[in-house]
């Protein structure tokens, strides 16, 4: 009896809510180092998952949230082909000075100019030069399929 593992008698304080924001300084709370997905990548992943479930004849569990998300991704994902999505992923991962969140954000918004990108994502303002960013956006622009 005495060597039983007792549950801890105190709980650590949960992180205060409402502090997370993606402003000039990124405070992502529990999502700090979690892998991110651009809209196009998320679209690929979810569609592949649904196709696999269909193939295995399992219930696809089409919830309301899932259907709304798929419709949203269909409208807004810029890169439709798998090869293009992978190419964009390679382009973005080359920039190690940006965090995963920032890279995915750039991949999802697909801005035309470096100025636009830096205005919409203020946290990258100091991390990358305008020329490098413009080069990245131009390369991505070539891969957009209509």
């Amino acid at each position, binding site marked *: 009896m005495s060597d039983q593992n007792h549950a801890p008698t105190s709980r650590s304080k949960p992180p205060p809510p409402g502090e997370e924001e993606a402003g000039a300084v990124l405070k992502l709370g529990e999502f700090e180092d979690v892998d991110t997905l651009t809209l196009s990548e998320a679209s690929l*992943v979810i569609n592949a998952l649904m196709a696999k479930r269909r193939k295995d004849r399992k219930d696809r569990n089409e919830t309301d949230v899932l259907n709304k998300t798929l419709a949203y991704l269909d*409208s807004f994902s810029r890169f439709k082909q798998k090869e293009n999505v992978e190419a964009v992923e390679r382009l973005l991962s080359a920039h190690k000075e940006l965090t995963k969140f920032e890279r995915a954000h750039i991949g999802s918004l697909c801005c035309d100019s470096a100025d636009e990108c830096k205005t919409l994502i203020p946290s990258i303002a100091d991390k990358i030069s305008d020329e490098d960013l413009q080069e990245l956006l131009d390369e991505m622009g070539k891969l957009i399929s209509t």
Partner: protein
Amino acid sequence: MFFLHNLERRVTLHPSYFGRNMHELVTTKLVKDVEGTCAGDYYIIAIMDTFDVSEGRILPGSGLAEFTVGYRAVVWRPFKGEVIDAIVDTVNPHGFFAQAGPLRLFVSSHLMPDEIRYDASATPAQFTNDADIVIEHGTHVRVKIIGLRTEVGEMWAIGSINGDFLGCLQP
């Protein structure tokens, strides 16, 4: 922002299901319970796979077996200050509602540039600056999230289009 997050959950299994395929049943129950829900700050869109199903522990008194399951899921978490695209849903004199996936956003007329005004006479009702910008049902807009509110199972957001590069998107 979409994330591939590792999460953990306790799933219980009734004794009538003990036998072969227990792990599959646990996974199925997990998927049914968790997919499509809003867990406080984020929406769990789809569960990819389970990578760690613990040994089942019988709960004293009820006979149910409890498994602690680690799984990977596609999760959507909107952040304050994040810029996202949305589709306009309904328009009223105080602002418009837009839908970004499972999230409902409200953009108040105070958080729009001064030149964009509500036009009740147009059919359908719309916000316009009487030149090239028209915001009505079905318009794609780029919105910056100003505030988020979460309640059990649901989230709401307030957005703004008052800023450079925000507002109507060219389709």
